[in-house]
């Protein structure tokens, strides 16, 4: 276990730097951390989205490892090709890693992702979830939560933002009987680092879904990205979990939740929500947690 990378032993050297992400960008932190854990032998595939838009502007290229942009829908299929191609030309000890947004993963890219998991290709797919199509200017994706205001789900007198709940991509992925899947958050980097480390050592398709707030899209100050990510976990709207060997395991089992109202109303995108809207979100959360407590392995106490 000596060469295990943890929050304490993670390298000081950088792989993803000099890019143009906004101040306080959660997505760029997720990508930066993931590549620091995976190292220079990672070959990364990023679809259209904020991280490719800020990192690949010729001649200003911001990845010191091998990296390539895929089509928006094609993260997983290109990863498959990269992995097979690398093996075919005799490259050893590398990791093909996808770094894709929520829209690129849960919407347009879900077919290719499903195909790759079905084939059990030896790839790691990381979805950095900022809960909207940010690169095109904050539009609703399948992972935008109920009530969130985006430019295509405006809030007015008639409609209070997005009408549909967030798709449960973690469980959709798990339903493929994938080798390993996990949720994570940049609000808990040690946990995220451990999961990347763990996934990278598993052969076959692995998936990590990391919540990565976007100050611009969420309407928060740029120095509160980590804090809001933590609040999301603390109030129960996100959870840290793993799926392995057909079993779901909850990694962090809070005794009680912090205020969901405080979490929501500290963000511009939820400012318009009234008590009834917040009740709906709280009820959805409680139903989810009841199912988790009933069906998942929850033996671990609060981390």
């Amino acid at each position, binding site marked *: 276990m000596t060469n295990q990378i943890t929050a304490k032993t993670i390298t000081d050297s950088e792989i993803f730097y000099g890019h143009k992400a906004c101040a306080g960008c959660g997505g760029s932190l997720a990508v930066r951390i993931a590549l620091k854990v995976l190292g*220079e*032998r990672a*070959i990364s*595939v990023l679809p259209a989205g904020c991280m*490719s*838009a800020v*990192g*690949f*502007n*010729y*001649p200003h*290229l*911001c*990845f*010191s*490892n*091998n*990296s*390539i*942009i*895929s*089509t928006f*829908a*094609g993260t*997983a*299929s*290109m*990863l*498959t*090709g*990269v*992995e*097979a*191609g*690398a*093996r*075919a*030309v005799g*490259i050893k000890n*590398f990791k093909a890693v996808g770094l894709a947004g929520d829209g690129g993963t849960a919407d347009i890219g879900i*077919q*290719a992702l*499903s*195909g790759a998991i*079905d*084939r059990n290709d030896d790839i790691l797919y990381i979805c950095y979830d900022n809960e909207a199509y940010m690169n095109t200017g904050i539009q609703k994706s399948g992972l935008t939560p109920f009530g969130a205001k985006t430019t295509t789900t405006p809030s007015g007198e008639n409609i209070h933002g997005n009408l549909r709940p967030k798709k449960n991509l973690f469980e959709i992925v798990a339903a493929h009987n994938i080798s390993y899947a996990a949720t994570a958050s940049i609000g808990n980097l040690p946990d995220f680092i451990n999961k990347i480390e763990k996934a990278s050592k598993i052969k076959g398709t692995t998936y990590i879904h990391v919540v990565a707030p976007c100050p611009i899209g969420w309407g928060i100050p740029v120095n509160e990205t980590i804090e809001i990510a933590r609040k999301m976990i603390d109030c129960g709207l996100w959870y840290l979990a793993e799926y392995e060997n057909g079993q779901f395991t909850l990694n962090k089992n809070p005794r009680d939740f912090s205020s969901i109202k405080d979490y929501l109303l500290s963000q511009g995108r939820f400012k318009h929500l009234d008590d009834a809207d917040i009740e709906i979100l709280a009820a959805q959360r409680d139903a989810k947690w009841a199912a988790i407590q009933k069906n998942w392995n929850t033996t671990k106490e609060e981390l």
Partner: protein
Amino acid sequence: MTKAFLSGNDAFAEGVRLARPQVISIYPITPQTTVVERISEMVEDSSLKSELIHVESEHSALSCAIGASAMGARTFTATSSQGLLYMAECLPYASGGRFPIVMMNANRSTALPWNIYGDQRDSLSQLDCGWIQVYVEDAQESLDMALQSYHIAENPLVSTPVMVNLDGFVLTHTYETVEIPSQTDADRFLPPFQTENKMSLDNPKNLAFSVGPDNNMEFKYLQHKAILGSKRIIEETDAKFAEIFGRSYGGLTQGYRLDDADYILITLGSITGLCREVVDELRERGEKVGLLKLRFLRPFPSDDLVAALGSAKAVGVLEKDISFGYEGTVYTNVNSVIAKNGLRLETYNFIAGLGGRDISRENITAIFRHLQTGGQHVNFIGLGVTIDD
């Protein structure tokens, strides 16, 4: 060398086997399917050692091939019609990234209305996507061009993907005797794939990046220049192929009885064989007719056209295509060469074979009559109606 009785698809699969692609992504669509079936069997019986990837769509088929090519692997995929259109986003992606993928396309009509039979509207709709486009005539040429295409695509001066088009059913499913070269000869012809345009651990790269207005046109100009430059590579490849295998196709075009021909028909693909027979019949009657088969549409064989058409009185373009609201796309391309070079001759367009409609010997004879007597410019063959521009 061995001989076998093979369909166009089978022959193409043999050519792919001889080219030793390292990664192959497959997805079925009629009338391409038997190619990917043959290739799967070859991988199963180890006559082809390749990573065979069962993708879930054509978009993924090409996206996967791009990923593998970006690692420096030789790649193959195949499609047709709806599949070609479904992967359309990836076509300029592959060519813009200069990934020398070889793809077979079984020419088939595009919906709506649904139709699985052969016409060339699928590939011609993608003429501008930056790929080299080849149209082959028979099973032997299918096999030979599978092999030649890698030689052209992977030349570092070209570094451009190649789409090889086989007429659906008429060629893909028609059996002929085909010479299958030995692996030793194939290896002599086609060396292993080497490229600088790849990611490697020794020399990490960022590929498929964004290029803004300041530099974008330079990238596009270089791409255009490379495809224009591929004309010479195509001819050199044909010459090298002839040296090793004894078969030559003449490069970008293949002429037939063009000396002193006053009336020339331009064809592409499998209909050429029947047109040659009609030329022979008419020649026997003393009529000065000839034929020019376009083997490549990109790069466009402008010089060959000028040389072939220079002293003709009239030229016809027979194509299984219509650019709705104008005329056949090949006709437009031919006319542009004629206009730019100040050639003085009449040109006619014959739209035929849409959705797999048969093109008969009588149709072709009537086309030559039309060239001789003149008439309307854009003609739909076999409809019994007259539509002019």
